[in-house]
């Protein structure tokens, strides 16, 4: 990929223009997802998931199309690919109003995500939330 945004745009749709740039989480090419492979068990549910690399590629495409905030969302998503479902849902729950007792609980979660999963962009989002929640008094229990 060059630094010319037009080059990134020319890769879209990736499944048609640059299928070789995406793989399954298990390293198989897109072309491996055939009915025969599903029937033989060669392809399972673990193969049908997007990778951080594909999301970062889509982020470059979005940015090249002038959609910077969408690109940032894709980058946060790339952070979350390897985060287990339960931890994502628990973090979502923690960000809801009145769930965290205090800012520290949110900051701890940010630290964990950054440390264990390299999820720096998601961690930054949570730290920003901790700051605003403190100022707006959102650590009040709701039920």
């Amino acid at each position, binding site marked *: 990929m060059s630094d010319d945004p037009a080059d990134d745009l020319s890769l879209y749709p990736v499944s048609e223009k640059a299928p070789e740039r995406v793989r399954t989480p298990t390293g198989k090419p897109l072309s491996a997802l055939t009915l025969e492979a599903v029937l033989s068990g060669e392809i399972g549910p673990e*193969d049908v998931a997007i990778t951080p690399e594909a999301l970062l590629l889509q982020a470059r495409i979005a940015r090249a199309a002038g959609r910077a905030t*969408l690109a940032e969302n894709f980058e946060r*998503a790339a952070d979350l690919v390897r985060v287990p479902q339960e931890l994502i849902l628990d973090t979502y729950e923690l960000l809801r109003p009145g769930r965290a007792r205090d800012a520290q609980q949110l900051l701890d979660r940010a630290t964990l995500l950054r440390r264990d999963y390299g999820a720096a962009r998601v961690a930054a989002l949570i730290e920003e939330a901790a700051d605003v929640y403190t100022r*707006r008094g959102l650590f009040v229990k709701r039920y």
Partner: protein
Amino acid sequence: MSEARKDGAAPASNRWRRFGEWDARPLRQDLFAAENPEAGFSVFRSPHDPAPSLTIEDGRVSVMDGKAAGDFDIIDAFIAAHHIDPEMAPVAMAMDPGAIARMLVDINVPRQDLEALARGLTPARLAEVVGRLSALEITFAYAKMRQRQSPGNQAHVTNAKDDPLQLAADSATAVALGFDEIETTMRVASNGWANALACTVGAAVGRGGVLFQCSIEEAEELQIGLAGLASYAETVSVYGTERAFIDGDDTPWSKALLTAAYASRGIKARCTSGAASELLMGFHEKRSLLYLEARCLCLQRAMGVQGTQNGGIDGAPLTASMAGGVRELMAENLIAVWLGLECASGNDTRTSESEIRVGAKITPYLLAGSDLICSGFGSIKKYDNSFNPSLFNGEEIEDYLVLQRDFQADGGLTPVDEDQVLGVRMRAVEALADVMDELGLAKVGRDRLLSVVFASGSQETESFTAGEVTPISAQIKARGITAVDVVRALARRGYEPEAENLLLMLRQRLSGDYLQTSSIVRDGRVMSAINDPNTYRGPQTGYRMSAPRWDAVQGIRNVLTRERVLAAEDIKDAAEVDWLVARGTAGRGTDPNEVVIGVSPGFARQLHRTTAGHRLEDVAEALVGGIAEGGGTARLVRMLHTADTSFLGLAAARLSGSGYGIGIQAKGTTVLHQADRMPHLNIELFSNAPLASLDHYRALGRNAARYTHGEAPEPVVVPTQGEALGARFHVRVALLYAIETALTDPAADPVELDYRPDAGGANV
């Protein structure tokens, strides 16, 4: 009135009765609300809305829309941090809002330039600018600013029993109708997994490639999506006031995390917001609907979601109750697309009991196009819609198809024929039954399948009840059944095309192509704002239907071709009937009580029935009989020089010994004329032939005879109840009349006809 005053009693009804009739119309069930900003009822502008303003210090927003950063609520804070582009903002905020409004409707200003400006505008300024546009200008600006070039539509597929068989059949039907997305929800929350499985299988029947979502609690929805049993999500709701947001049990940061979580699982997501949601939730801060919605939309762009379901949504009926409310719904959609968001543009809630208001509501969207014109068109019947009735529903799909055809506007739907629908419905229920069997979820009897295939709605089915579905749904979830299992089950049971369709959607998930703005999947290919961008720049640009697409849109049921009309009419090759025999050129009569009946060139030769369905033999008998009853003598003459009613009548009158004549066309239009009159100044006329009875013809004959005796009979009035006769008959009339005009010969003499009623029944 005066009598009531004299005796002092109250009049029975001191009221123009038309008001009573108006009271009984469906419209009057709608409520209409007065403007009241203190109570949250203001549409475009409230005195409590802030004046637009923006101050940036050291690259950070320090004041926005009159509020200092230290006072920002959660929405302000997120918008200031993630929406406002500090480089664009000083330029955009310094511009005259009127100039920006004009740029929105200027075909010479590219969409991308305006999107760049929007990134520097605050919510209050965005609302101020679109508030300067009329409804027509908003529609035009929307057509220019919307993101994907090709318009699309989304279906609701639900039913009152959560019956998976019906969900599958109705999903397949929705696919056949051309919907790009299908959204389901449940009557019973625990049936979510069964609903998702059923719609996934049904949506794989036919062309495939349809995006599908299951609207349910956020965590559950993410789980269903992760299992591949949903490909997009739409329930990321946001609100325009802090208190409403918190009562919605979220914050911009929790929603931003959820949005990223969907993308991390390869699931397309859009947010939901719409006018009056804050008002319904009791926290409106006395702000106008549009200003609060502008906040919601800036927030959505800030969160990095690709699109929005926007335009009132659940608050649409309340918004539409206010003056200018429907214009506001359009204005907020315009802000959405101006911010570069995909817009599923509302039109998903029944905003009125008036069919006229419903039709008017959808029209600007049909004309402008939209990424998804309805964020839920009720493809099922109203009572089966678990979201609540949509603006358009199963009952009204054909009305919508005709609107597309009327305006030559692509509303995203395609007409279907009866065999095609039965085919896909049968295929869908069989496929689902086999998948459920293959996965050990349920065995379904043939009777259930058939009851669903032919049913218009769940009130007619003998199938699963909501309670029966719950354990199936629980099993799907507990056993971790995924779309890959469904692909396998479909293929094993011989549903290879459906298995391939579903696999295609799973393969798309790997590339993430449909995560980009305004994505849909057609013919196995992702189309989005990136590879199918809206390029509207004035006439002959932007989206136009291709010739095959326009052909498809025209293909509504029962379109009359000339051949079909003529085949249904009683049309013969030119031949003489034995009850009306030609015998030479007709001359002028001398009988002072004679009434000449001048028939048209094709009368009882090529054409044998009036548009009311009367056989011409019976019509002739009624006219002749009536003339006799009135003391006259009838004589029949065929005119060949004209087929026009007035001239038939006048020519007949000029041949008549009395000077009175009747002209009649084969389609039944009849005139009573007098020899000295101007052609179009007749005595009596039956212009609405479809309403004329044989008794009317008889009475007209009687009147004609009485005129010959110098009497002045009461004219025959054919009563009308205001039927749209043109809509009902003119296609037939035009084609039938063309047969008659083709037979005319300006030089031909009238032909004397020998009327032989006793020949009887020979005009077969």
